[in-house]
């Protein structure tokens, strides 16, 4: 084995095709997309160079500012919600339900396997006001409150989206964090209990520091996923009302494929890449520091 892996030709033969494939389907389109950022036009009219026009437009475009702000706001709230709700569920599984947690784990995980479009339709019906009030508005009416047009303004539509996405994914993070929690040695917990730590103190001083690596992994997973949110927005609100719930990904998609502005769409994609890169770097730095401390 050592002889084969020590042979340069063997390494090239083994890695070459995969590397070539990766280059062709990942790196080339990325560089290509970057190239498009300096062009204007579409597949019908052809492409012409436009210098830095797309970048100056990006800076002045109020729709980009709105979409960027929406993306960041959504990513922070949903990430926090997903990880906190997932962690609370995991604590529930490990410390309260213990061996009886299988059923609750399955039920909490169930929304993860549902197609996003189905979940979007489900929440549309739950929160709808017309043609018939949905269950949420019926409940409000039962308490003598007026129906709310949740999808009629950006503020309430945003919160429905947040609730939907946290509900949809908390089961996944619960399972991920559950795996981290069951790895904590029983002896450590037992000795902490003998030392008088219980309840919140046990969690704060023993469980939380010991599960920090898996918590950080969950955070990285979550923030990267939420910054690139697309399907759940399209399924629930399609970016509306107006552009009130339009993230950068959807604006990029609309610019490229609906408005035929491939160059500008690529520029928005570049902005999204930079945002993802900066956030990932920040999270990695924090996670490295914390791991060292713990």
């Amino acid at each position, binding site marked *: 084995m050592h002889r*084969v892996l020590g042979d340069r030709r*063997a390494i090239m*033969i*083994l890695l*070459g*095709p*995969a590397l*070539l*494939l990766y280059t*062709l389907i990942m790196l080339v389109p990325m560089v290509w997309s970057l190239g498009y950022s300096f062009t204007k036009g*579409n*597949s*019908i*009219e*052809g492409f012409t160079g436009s210098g830095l026009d797309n970048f100056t*437009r990006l800076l002045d*475009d*109020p729709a980009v500012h709105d979409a960027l702000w929406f993306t960041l706001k959504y990513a922070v709230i949903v990430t926090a919600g997903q990880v906190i709700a997932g962690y609370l569920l995991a604590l529930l599984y490990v410390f309260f339900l213990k061996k009886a947690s299988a059923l609750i784990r399955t039920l909490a995980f169930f929304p993860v396997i549902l197609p996003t479009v189905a979940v979007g339709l489900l929440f*549309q019906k739950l929160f*709808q*006001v*017309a*043609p018939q009030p949905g269950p949420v508005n019926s409940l409000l009416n039962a308490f003598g409150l007026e*129906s709310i*047009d949740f*999808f*009629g*303004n*950006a503020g309430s539509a945003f919160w429905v989206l947040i609730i939907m996405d946290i509900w949809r994914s908390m089961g996944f993070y619960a399972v991920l964090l559950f795996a981290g929690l069951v790895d904590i040695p029983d002896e450590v917990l037992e000795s902490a209990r003998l030392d008088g730590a219980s309840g919140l103190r046990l969690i704060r001083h023993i469980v939380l520091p010991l599960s920090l690596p898996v918590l950080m992994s969950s955070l990285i997973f979550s923030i990267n996923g939420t910054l690139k949110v697309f399907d759940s927005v399209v399924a629930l609100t*399609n*970016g*509306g*009302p*107006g*552009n*009130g719930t339009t993230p950068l990904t959807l604006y990029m998609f*609309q610019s490229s*494929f*609906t*408005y*035929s*502005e491939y160059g500008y769409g690529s520029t928005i994609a570049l902005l999204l890449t930079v945002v993802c890169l900066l956030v990932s770097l920040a999270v990695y730095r924090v996670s490295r520091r914390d791991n060292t401390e713990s």
Partner: protein
Amino acid sequence: MPHRTIRARRLALTSAGVMSLALLATACGGSNGGGTSAAPKDFTYLSVTENTTTRTALTTLSTSTCKAENDALPLKVETIPQAQLDQKLQLLAGQDALPPMFAAGNAPALTKQLAKGNKVADIELELKRLGVLDQLEPAAVSTIKALYGGKLMALPYEYNIEGIFYNKKLFQENGIAVPGTWDELLTAADKLNAKGVQPFSASGAQGWPLTRLISGYLYRSLGPDALDKVDAGTAKLTDPEYVKAAEEVAALGKKGYFGKGVGSIDYDTAMNQFLTGKSGMFYMGSWALANIADPKQNKVGTENVGFMPFPAVKGGKGSIDQYPSNIGLAVTLGSKSFGDKTGAWVGCIAKNFGSTALKDHGTITGFKVNTPVKDTSEVAGTVRKTISGSKQNVLWFEALFSTKATTISNTSAPGLVNGSISPEKFMATVQDALGSQ
């Protein structure tokens, strides 16, 4: 290590490498379909899934009056959801693989782009060559030319005028006369609302049924060239006289005249509200006559449905006999695949489609009706007479807008009527979208 083992290992490594490369080549290789523009084997019609009338009527023709043309070049219908049409057309155009006949995009701007790239046949020239240009109604030709910068870039498989359908019974019960002015329309709406009847039904999910009210007001207050001026850049949607139209429509929403959650009301629900007597008025195009004629949908009875033009605005420059008109979702012909056999099909369609669509579907088209057909209802007769008697037609709010401005206008309209977007902000957003492309 024995030589045989080394040789076998080398052979295995080399084979693995070759197979990986073969796999890669297979994955990266394209199919040999598309990209060609040779004479077509079929008369392919790329239609939107939502429109069933045109393709059904064409299928009927293929087995009756146009059978010979169909035998020479068989009709083949392909469908795609309307929301994905523009992307599909761009991809096909990029590969020079547009079919002989296709739905021409959600906004005229895309068709103009296709024509600029020589992807669309010169329909006027081809119809003249075939000797069937006179089979198109002049009003339909003038609407198409108004939409497409003076060129005949589409076939009028539909020809619609728009106005307000109203429930005669509800009007009579509440002592309402047919409104002739905007103020009278508001009074009628007040009366209906006071009696617990929703004055208007409209689909906010589609958006355009709301923006049509804005353009209706603009055409009546500023004259038939109101939106041409915006297109030419001599006026802006943010000018006070334009914002006024948005304010008037927003005021209807503020009073709750469109009902609750208008943004969630889809097209079918809005139609259903009107045809089941839950609302008094419904701004719509004449294509709704098919729904009105269907007793399964129409529970108020065809005799109780009336049609009126968009009312006049006091002191305005427009006139109520200037009806907004359109040709539905435009259908055009590809230039690369246009040949003798396609021409024969188009000639047969021009002579026979008008009668078939009216007889089988109650749809009024821009083709001449060469076989007399009886009107399905009184309201259908009124609309037909209005179409044939109309002298000057106007377009609609987004007719001359880019795809981007059209999308933004439609998606922002519910916000305008539910108060989450101010009239100034609505017009400014659409104007920005117009300026950004």
